[in-house]
């Protein structure tokens, strides 16, 4: 904490060319020569790639040769190469925190590509500012904290299930939290999967059973994340177990009901007088106020919809001696400690009725692809018979509208490609050809994006089966008020001719968007999102499972539209990443903690309330009240340091004297 004496500072400056990324715009030689004139700089050098082994050796050698106290590298961003250069600094025998980076690439040469003179001047400023800070840097030691040997996965779709299974199989106790009464997610709503045409439920249910039976997985369905505190290795997650109204056999036993609890017999639902639409069937089939989504749910435990229940008590009677139904149930809160967490929050269907021209919710026979999945599914509301909602007739001519709301830059659409609609629409075309004799699918498309393994071959197969492809985006759909048939208007852009196609049914391949809970949950875990709401990975290419919050990882469509293979692959990646800190047993925290300068602290306690992480407290020391920092909780945000009226808080690595020196270096142009 002692201030480094300015006079003794000996700084080395290293300017990186980054090939032509920097050297193509900035005059490297001029920056280097300028650096030599900055106070405290004893050596300045340059190299084509400072991050390469020879570049790093230059740093280590110069530290020894010139007895440096600080190192400045003018190159890319700390996010990319701070660890690299810290290692090089340490290799030279200096404390790695005596390294400071000047960003002359991302914030300079790349954005000022056409202004080389001004860019060079800006680079000189950046180097001068970095030297000012480097002159005042001090030795810091990272803090190690133990990692709780448990993990949490939020979201029980196929991604979350796979992540939980992998973690559990790696010997880690895993809490799998799912908001709905059953795991399975979107995949359990699908009939078949492309391109193999596997029955979706058939390949999913074994996994659901595995999850339920796995001893290392604690399955928490009908449960939501309420609050998250802590940091990597030590998250305290508060969960809301929503009032289910039905006891599991375990819960029943805990209440002393021997041999009781729900067996999934369904006697309760049989007598329940309240009928509601089943959200699993997208409202196309009824359920009772005490319900399961479908016969293959896991866990097979009924749930009371307390918003609909009239508390008539018939179900309690029907349940009898099992005494599983508890109509007085209340939400319960539990807090669990986990080392790492994976978010697998999934996606929702974009409300396609917002695009009026497609007529969804206005015309009976315009349905979404997910509704099609339920209608074509043997366990669905129609037993797998595709029917027109208007009259129950079997449709023969069916139009599939791709990019319905996707690739749409208006304010009523989504600018991204939803990625799997092309493929499932091809699959839908196959299914109607297979199931309905004489049926013709018309696929309105802009591009068929069949990018995955065996996907293009699948496209070939469906074309060969007789699907008609019309290359043009659908302009609008109108309804014949008498027959309820639909007229699909588009241009066949390959013919250059407008098309008015009369069909019996239209299936909209609606865009997808982050699930409704994504925004709330990501805020609890401190995860960023991109403009369109998808969760932001730590690096789009090199760290697609990680987030910028240490210890929190992403799996599946919550990070961006993904089909099943990609979701499962990312889930396994996330599980692997989430298990690393747990297996290591401890993590190093960057030592950017606030420190209390006790002799200056008046003990006013204002900072305690300012801290967003509950890291500060007041303690008695030597007969005085002073502030104390719980280092493991402190994230170094600087709120307290900036606020403290007495200047009694020292932000390590971002201390006031260091920052003021940087500002002075900029404003005074190097004059001290």
């Amino acid at each position, binding site marked *: 904490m002692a201030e480094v004496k300015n006079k003794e500072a000996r700084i080395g400056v290293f300017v990186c060319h980054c090939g032509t990324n920097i050297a193509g715009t900035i005059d490297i030689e001029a920056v280097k020569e300028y650096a030599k004139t900055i106070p405290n700089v004893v050596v300045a050098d340059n190299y084509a790639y400072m991050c390469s082994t020879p570049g790093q050796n230059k740093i280590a050698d110069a530290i020894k040769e010139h007895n440096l106290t600080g190192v400045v590298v003018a190159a890319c961003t700390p996010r990319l190469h701070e660890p690299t250069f810290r290692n090089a600094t340490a290799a030279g025998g200096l404390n790695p925190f005596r390294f400071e980076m000047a960003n002359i690439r991302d914030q300079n040469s790349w954005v000022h590509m056409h202004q080389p003179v001004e860019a060079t001047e800006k680079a000189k400023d950046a180097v001068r500012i970095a030297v000012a800070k480097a002159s005042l840097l001090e030795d810091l030691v990272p803090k190690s904290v133990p990692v709780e040997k448990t993990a949490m996965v939020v979201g029980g779709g196929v991604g979350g299930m796979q992540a939980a299974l992998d973690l559990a199989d790696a010997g880690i106790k895993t809490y799998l939290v799912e908001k709905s009464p059953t795991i399975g997610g979107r995949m359990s709503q699908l009939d078949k999967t492309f391109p193999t045409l596997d029955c979706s439920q058939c390949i999913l249910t074994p996994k659901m059973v595995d999850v339920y039976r796995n001893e290392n997985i604690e399955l928490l369905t009908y449960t939501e994340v309420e609050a998250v505190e802590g940091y990597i290795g030590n998250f305290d997650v508060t969960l809301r177990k929503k009032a289910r109204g039905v006891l599991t056999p375990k819960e029943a036993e805990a209440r002393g009901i021997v041999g009781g609890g729900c067996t999934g017999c369904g006697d309760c639902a049989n007598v329940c007088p309240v009928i509601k639409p089943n959200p699993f069937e997208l409202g196309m089939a009824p359920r009772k106020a005490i319900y399961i989504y479908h016969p293959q749910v896991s866990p097979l435990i009924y749930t009371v919809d307390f918003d609909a229940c009239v508390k008539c008590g018939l179900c309690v009677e029907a349940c009898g001696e099992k005494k599983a139904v508890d109509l007085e149930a209340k939400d319960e809160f539990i807090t669990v400690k986990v080392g790492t967490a994976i978010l697998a929050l999934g996606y929702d269907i974009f409300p396609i009725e917002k695009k009026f021209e497609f007529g969804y919710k206005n015309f009976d026979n315009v349905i979404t692809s997910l509704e099609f999945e339920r209608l074509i599914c043997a366990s669905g509301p129609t037993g797998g018979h595709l029917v027109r909602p208007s009259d129950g007739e079997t449709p023969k001519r069916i139009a599939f509208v791709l990019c319905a709301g996707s690739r749409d830059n208006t304010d009523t659409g989504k600018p991204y490609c939803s990625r799997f609609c092309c493929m499932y629409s091809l699959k839908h075309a196959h299914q109607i050809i297979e199931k309905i004799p004489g049926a013709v699918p018309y696929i309105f498309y802009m591009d068929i994006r069949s990018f995955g393994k065996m996907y293009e071959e699948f496209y070939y197969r469906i074309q060969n089966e007789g699907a008609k492809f019309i290359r043009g985006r659908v302009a*609008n759909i109108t309804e014949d008020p008498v027959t309820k048939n639909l007229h699909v208007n588009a*241009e066949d852009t390959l013919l250059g001719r407008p098309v008015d196609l009369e069909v019996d049914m239209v299936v909209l391949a609606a865009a997808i968007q982050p699930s409704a809970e994504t925004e709330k949950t990501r805020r609890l875990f401190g995860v960023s999102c991109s403009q369109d709401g998808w969760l932001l990975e730590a690096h789009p290419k090199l760290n697609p499972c990680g987030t910028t919050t240490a210890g929190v990882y992403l799996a599946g469509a919550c990070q961006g539209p993904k089909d099943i293979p990609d979701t499962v692959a990312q889930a396994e990646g996330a599980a692997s990443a989430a298990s690393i800190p747990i297996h290591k047993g401890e993590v190093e925290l960057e030592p950017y903690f606030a420190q209390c300068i006790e002799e200056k602290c008046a003990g006013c306690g204002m900072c305690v309330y300012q801290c967003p992480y509950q890291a500060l407290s007041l303690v008695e020391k030597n007969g005085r009240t002073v502030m104390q920092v719980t280092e493991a909780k402190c994230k170094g945000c600087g709120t307290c340091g900036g606020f403290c009226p007495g200047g009694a808080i020292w932000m390590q690595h971002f201390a006031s004297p260091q920052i003021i020196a940087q500002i002075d270096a900029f404003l005074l142009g190097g004059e001290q």
Partner: protein
Amino acid sequence: MAVKKDYMDQKLAEKLRDRKYYAPDSNPEFLKEVEKIGQTPAHMCYQCGTCTGSCPSAPRSSYRIRLFMRKAVLGLEEEALTDPDLWLCTTCYSCTDRCPRDLAPTDTIMAMRNLAFRRDIVPRNFLQTVQLIYKSGHGVPNNDANRAARKRLGLDEEPETTHKYPEYLPGIQKILDHYRLKENADRILAEGE
């Protein structure tokens, strides 16, 4: 450049003319100018056909707004400006309403019409409309059939426009004179005689 072959017969030569797209056919300035006047980034068109699919003119004509967007992107100035289809847009703005790229194809067409007019390429009926507006304040002036219909509906024979208030006509004429619209219309029509 298109390869020229001599067929010794003008008709045959035109029929078998090389119609490939060659780079020099393109005038990149054309796209810039169209975007400047139309105030919509036509180069962002991805040719989905929503515009033509929405167009009330397309089913009954050879007018394909998507192709004009394409010609703007490729800088095919000659082809775009000399195509008589350019004048078949009714400016209903259906394409603009539905364009998923949030472009205004209608405004691209209007920009091209401006550029065409600069080169005196404009159909005679448009010019006659200009003359009618100059004369009456209306592109489609009132007529006896209309007057009778209005009377049946209990309306005044003349609407609340320059028809009823001819004293405002000089104002309209001043505007048309300012842009030399009438003068140009008269000239082009006379030259075409």
